[in-house]
């Protein structure tokens, strides 16, 4: 549910700090009908042009704080709001300028479901 809204259009950007390219970022939403504690976001898998992005390179930024993906399980007091546009920051060499095939998959641990809730989106995004 809400899968087609996971990747926000026109949100792929390079990240530059002190004139140095640090990586890139994109804006993402949670594919679920209510806010969810971050400790229940089990996995965020990102692929750019067919190449999986190593999870260690990624940080999720929500209104409640910034969390490396490995820290999500311990983020007991932070929520990702319903429809909240979060920023996924990726460290390392940004992709080249131009259009890229971006795929994302989120795995959510929903207590009343007897399976992992998986949301998937795929869009062509242009690096700004």
């Amino acid at each position: 549910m809400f899968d087609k809204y996971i990747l926000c259009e026109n949100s792929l950007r390079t990240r530059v700090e002190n004139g140095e390219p640090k990586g890139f970022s994109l804006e993402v939403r949670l594919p679920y009908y209510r806010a969810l504690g971050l400790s229940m976001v089990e996995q965020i898998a990102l692929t750019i042009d067919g190449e999986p992005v190593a999870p260690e390179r990624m940080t999720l930024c929500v209104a409640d704080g910034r969390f490396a993906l490995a820290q999500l399980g311990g983020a007991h007091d932070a929520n990702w709001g319903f429809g909240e546009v979060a920023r996924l920051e990726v460290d390392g060499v940004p992709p080249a300028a131009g259009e890229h095939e971006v795929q994302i998959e989120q795995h959510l641990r929903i207590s009343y479901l007897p399976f992992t809730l998986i949301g998937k989106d795929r869009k062509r995004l242009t690096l700004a």
Partner: protein
Amino acid sequence: MSKTARIQRGISLYSYQEEFFLRKLDLEGCIAEAAKIGANGIEIVSEQMIPRAPDASSAFYEQWHEWMAQYGTTPVCHDLFLDTKRYPDRRLTDDECVASIEADLRHAHRLGCRFVRVLVSVSPHILARCVSAAEHYDVKMLLEVHSPLHFDHPWIMRHAESMERLGTQHIGFMPDMGIFVKHYPRVMRDRFVRMGAREQVADFICAAYDERVLSEYLLQDVRQMGGTAVELAMAETVRHTIWSNPKRLLEFMPRIHHIHAKFYEMTVECVEPSIPYEDILPVLVEGGYDGYLSSEYEGNRHVQDAFDVDSVEQVRRQHQLFERLLEQYAPVAA
């Protein structure tokens, strides 16, 4: 001994989830839309629409009551969740579950709601421990009888027995009308076809649903037809989407205080093709139901991949249907 039914129109703001998600409507906007169509009983999935729920700010609760007064709406129900799997390495303890529900009861009370929706997966022994808090706040805990469960499922029988043993008025039921899906919802079928299910296999599954074929047999048939992953996924939904007898509501009516008026699609003629509200309303009237029909539109997830969703129009059509049926079956309704 038959009570006169008193049936009112309401809405769970869950119905407007698509517009809220996309920030086309904010919470006040949702309340305003409900008031426009006379759906004055407001139910809310607080974790969708209220920041920091169930621990919202004092300023929020003040604003909420101002909106209720301004729009002439009445707070009815807060839908709670229980995140038993909140932590990766363990389940919540019973004490933590009770504390979580008590926080929801307090929040419901601050909203002025008379009920909380309790997830059907919550155990009777946990609810039993929350009775004193429910009585203190005077908020009834209503177990949502939701598909694939139904009134003759052993889990619901167990809950009913527990309620009677406890002898409290502060636990009851809120059936979700998705337990009365008479025909496979068209919007679900069409979504599976868009995902790649062959038309003839989708038709086969819909026919099997109407023939009340056991889900295990249907799955076997679809496998033997060389069913693809998508077709098997559609067949699997028959385990969760159910038809049961609306007349079963009569036995439990003294404990039924709220109705989730689930729907997947309202046609332009204001008909829900899959759920027979024209058969359900007379049962509610016969049973003397006193409460709201709380619209719960859940079609957006089945159409959003291909169409713009108009939840406001969908809910408007359901309330046209309610007005017509209430006129026909319960002309003395409040």
